[in-house]
């Protein structure tokens, strides 16, 4: 069971890494805004599996914290991205 879960967390980590490569390469900033969202799903899944594998039940609390903070970071990505778009002259409907 532990071997299976370790393999699963390794697989999800590999998917996360590939996704991060794709997102960080862009081409635009809107793609990069997804990075925190990706960690908010893939990273949390890896963390939950890792907690079960390593025998750390409190990993669930870390996942809970990570879920909240990743959402917060995503919102900040969007807001800061918007403010830089506004600097370029294009406004936003969300901010009107």
């Amino acid at each position, binding site marked *: 069971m532990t071997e299976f879960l370790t393999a699963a967390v*390794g697989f999800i*980590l590999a998917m996360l890494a590939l996704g991060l490569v794709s997102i960080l390469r862009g081409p635009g900033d809107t793609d990069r805004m997804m990075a*925190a969202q990706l960690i908010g799903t893939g*990273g949390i899944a890896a963390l939950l599996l890792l907690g079960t594998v390593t025998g750390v039940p409190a990993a669930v609390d*870390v996942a809970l914290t990570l879920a909240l903070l990743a959402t*917060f*970071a995503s919102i*900040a990505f969007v807001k800061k991205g918007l403010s830089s778009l506004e600097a370029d002259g294009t406004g936003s409907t969300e901010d009107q």
Partner: protein
Amino acid sequence: MSIAAAFEVALAAVVLGLGIWTIAVRETYSATVGFVAYGLLVALIWVRLDAVDVALTEAAIGGGLGGVLLLGAAARLRDAGPTAAEAPGKVVRVTAAILSVLTAAALAGAVLLLPDPAPTLAPKAVANASATGLANPVTNVLMAFRAMDTMLEKVVLLLAIIGVWSLAPDDAWGGHPGPRHQADPLGVLVFLARLLPPIGIVVGIYIFWTGANHPGGAFQGGAILASMWLLAIMAGLTDTPPVGRRWLRFILVAGPGLFLVVGLGGLWFGAAFLAYPPAQAKPLILGIEVAMILTIAATLGLLLAGAPERSVK
């Protein structure tokens, strides 16, 4: 190589890959996004190292709040233009590379040559847990055995906020930090900013409360509360308070102030500075932590908001 070892190498490689991206990429915004991802993923390493308290802190403060702080600065400095004039020459680059490789190699050598069996203070920390009545050894070290460090750390937070505020322009002295955010009141952002903070506040208080016996504590809980406050500010639901307000300043000094009073009480009634009387150790520590979580949440939020920019109208 066993499957667990392969996984550990893969995890280290992913985190280091993000580190290389952060250093090597040209654009500052991309580097910042990479650093946020790095900070959030380092929490996985900390869980693997069985240091869940640190994992919580790194995820909340190192990755989340720290990353957003850097991100805000990157967004504002966007039109600063390239600073190619200052780029160091080839000699500096090669020297820096050699220096960095030597430093990393020395540290790697030290890691490989660590003494066996490893020295540890864990048995002592566990054996003396009965002195405070708290089961989490990390909280015991932070709040009792090395309480002086924790108190001074709160003072550092306070000094940082004084430093940030002192950078305000004259006309905004004592005013609101940061811009006033506005958003469509029926939009998605406002919806999330109304829905998430109640959940976040419950989770923050839970992380704080569970810190007595399980991983968690006032910093981690305070960081979650601060992020929820900032979410409401970013959605325009509330404004940053003017930094001249008396109640705000009271909250900012409540944590370190109560800590200092308890510490002096230990000097007066007990054996030494910050010596808790054994019978009241747990209530005293809890009292300090309740004051501290408020102070930490307010301080972290205001550090992210930055220097005052708008005067009180």
